[in-house]
């Protein structure tokens, strides 16, 4: 039935996936193959690119299907990540084809930060490259736990099983140091289309799933609806010039759910109020709002809160805490290094504060360096940051949205990172609890641990 098809398509799940790996290891070729072999290309596109190659005396490559920018076509290199839309029988995908060249690491990260799962491509001929390791590290820093490792170009090695097994062994050992457990390793030839959408008779020794089957078996992130409620206040609206008397507290719910009548607390100001109404335009009125909804609330009590505060439920023991010092992992992308004695802008949730680098505890993923004097472009480090004013944060593994941040240097989006620990936590918890009159006792940590285990099981394996 026509109508059924329409409804099914509209409700079909969507997943964002990033394809990463070192330059020339075959990312774009893999995506080009996926598109071509699943008939996801516009009619005539494949032929048009083949014709164009013929005309210009070039050998056709599937990667040409993707490299859209003129400079990319001229240089045969992916410069910026592209969003590519793709459908399997199971769901819709946005595949983010991220550049592998170290110079474009910022673009790889821009792509990967959107993704819930990653495909990491390794060239079987070249083996595990420095960048293969760096990308693995970045995926772990971004909290992407679903990783499929594709060992490509096995056609050039007569589909040699031993090469595949050796690379697998080496890379698994590396990922273990990052506590990342890849979900699968697949030997492929992207150019020849082996093990991409169909099993390859050339590799009878591989009995696992194809790349497409593994993509389809990935799971979208849990909805976090069962988690605690939190919503960074994005803005407070009052459009009184149109005789609208409502003061609407707007924002996107990052976890949990909330209903009309419930009592809420804003952090860090700790002002309290009750939800009067959930505001909507041109839709049936509602009494409950859930995770990921762009929402707007009116409150029973007219209180003054601003963008940057986080709304939580007064009755809930949310692991959202006020912090002025945090321990964090940072990836630095800025032109100028991240250095001491300088002030930067930190953006977290909807909040903004000045931030200073207090200490570099260690460099991540690289050999030891003698001096911890700064983080240079493309460096990763574990650091302590101090904020100019208190901000409501979570550890990344409690709540990804309230536990990740961007650092701006002037007009330059210079770094990104995740909160590992709130160094003010103890102090803040005591004062928060006494304020709310809630005795958390020892139960909180157990609850927290259970939550962590539920949402980040790979961390406990």
């Amino acid at each position, binding site marked *: 039935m026509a109508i059924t098809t*329409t409804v099914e398509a*509209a409700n079909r799940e969507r997943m964002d996936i990033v394809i990463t790996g070192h330059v020339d290891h075959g990312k774009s070729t893999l995506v080009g193959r996926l598109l071509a072999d699943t008939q996801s290309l516009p009619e005539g596109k494949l032929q048009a690119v083949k014709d164009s190659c013929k005309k210009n005396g070039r050998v056709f490559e599937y990667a040409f299907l993707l490299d859209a*920018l003129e400079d990319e*076509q001229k240089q045969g290199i992916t410069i910026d990540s592209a969003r590519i839309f793709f459908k399997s029988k199971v769901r*819709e995908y946005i595949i983010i084809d991220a550049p592998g060249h170290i110079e474009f690491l910022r673009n790889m990260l821009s792509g990967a930060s959107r993704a819930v799962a990653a495909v990491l491509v390794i060239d079987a001929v070249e083996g595990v490259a420095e960048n293969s390791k760096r990308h693995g590290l970045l995926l772990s820093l971004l909290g992407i736990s679903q990783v499929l490792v594709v060992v490509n170009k096995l056609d050039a090695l007569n589909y040699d099983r031993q090469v595949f097994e050796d690379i697998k062994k080496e890379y698994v050992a590396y990922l273990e140091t990052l506590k990342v457990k890849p979900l699968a390793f697949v030997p492929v030839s992207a150019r020849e289309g082996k093990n991409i959408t169909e099993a390859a008779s050339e590799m009878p020794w591989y009995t696992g799933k194809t790349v497409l089957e593994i993509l389809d078996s990935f799971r979208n992130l849990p909805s976090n609806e069962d988690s605690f409620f939190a919503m960074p206040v994005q803005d407070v609206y009052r459009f009184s010039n149109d005789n609208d008397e409502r003061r609407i507290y707007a924002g996107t719910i990052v976890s949990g759910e909330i209903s009309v009548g419930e009592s809420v607390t804003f952090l860090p100001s700790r002002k309290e109020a009750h939800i009067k109404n959930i505001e909507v*335009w041109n839709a049936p009125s509602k009494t409950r709002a859930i*995770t990921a909804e762009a929402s707007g609330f009116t409150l029973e009590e007219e209180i003054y809160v601003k963008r940057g505060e986080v709304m939580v439920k007064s009755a809930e023991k949310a692991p959202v805490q006020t912090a002025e010092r945090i321990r964090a992992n940072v990836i630095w992308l800025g032109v100028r290094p991240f250095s001491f004695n300088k002030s930067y802008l930190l953006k977290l949730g909807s909040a903004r504060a000045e931030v200073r680098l207090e200490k570099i505890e260690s460099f991540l993923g690289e050999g030891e360096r003698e001096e911890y004097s700064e983080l240079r472009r493309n460096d990763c480090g574990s650091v302590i940051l101090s904020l100019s004013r208190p901000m409501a944060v979570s550890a990344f593994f409690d709540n990804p949205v309230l536990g990740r941040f961007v650092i701006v240097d002037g007009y330059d989006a210079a770094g990104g990172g995740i909160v590992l620990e709130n160094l003010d936590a103890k102090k803040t918890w005591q004062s928060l609890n006494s304020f709310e009159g809630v005795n958390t006792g020892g139960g909180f940590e157990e609850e927290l641990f259970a939550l962590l285990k539920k949402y980040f099981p790979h961390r406990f394996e």
Partner: protein
Amino acid sequence: MSEETGLTKLDRLESQSIFIIREAYKSFKNIGMLWSIGKDSTVLLWLAKKAFFGHIPFELIHIDTNYKIPEMIAYRDRLAKELKLRLVVGQNKKALAEKRTFVDGLDRISCCKELKTIPLRQTLDGVGARRVYDPNRDVWEEFETAEPYNAVIVGVRSDEEGSRSKERVFSARDEKSEWDASAQPPELWNLYKTEFAPKTHVRVHPLLDWTELNIWEYIEREKIPTISIYYNQGEGKRYRSLGCYPCTSPVDSDARNPGEIIEELISGKFRNIAERSGRAQDIDGGGTLETLRKEGYM
């Protein structure tokens, strides 16, 4: 529906776009939203209404090339009145007077530059003639200058064309509205870069993650009033993409409503046909739209 979530794919797309529109409104002093009359920017308009609970706290900007399909202008003026939109219409009157257009012998790409890119840049910069519709008084007024916009919200989608697939959500243009596609800043999670040097123009793109199909699915779900020429009205033809009439042709199609268009896109005749295949300026060789876009075209 996804087994693990309460929101559908369309709910999520809607939510994410509203988040972006709200961030844009909060981040720039003088922001506008481009409205091309087409389905994408009309969806954008709808999302803005939702984001601000029935209000649109900024101006809508339309660039009128003088060669738009006549129904588009009639629909534009009617919707502006019905939805109470403050509408700013920019036009390159000089190029029209001096006959620097495709119908007067200019090539297509140069015509796009004369009638779209240049007036868009001028309108954003606050120079050049403009007509402004004031919904409260229901009148049109003529102005020569205005305060420049720091940013505009634009309805481009990644699946339309290669260079658009590489866009950032908050995308900077320099003083001359030019785009350096190979040197874009990082954009991590939804912590968008909203800090820009003075005189930077920013294009905000809330619809990058939507496909043509998603747009129609949403129009159907929300019952958004769209222009009639998207639908077959008895002659077996409809427009799939709107533009200027010398360069845009209708496609053969029997689809009479959004539901039938969705069918056509999912399993019917347009399943594997690119949306802009009815637009002549895209076919004049690789990279042309990218070239236009580097100079300030949408």
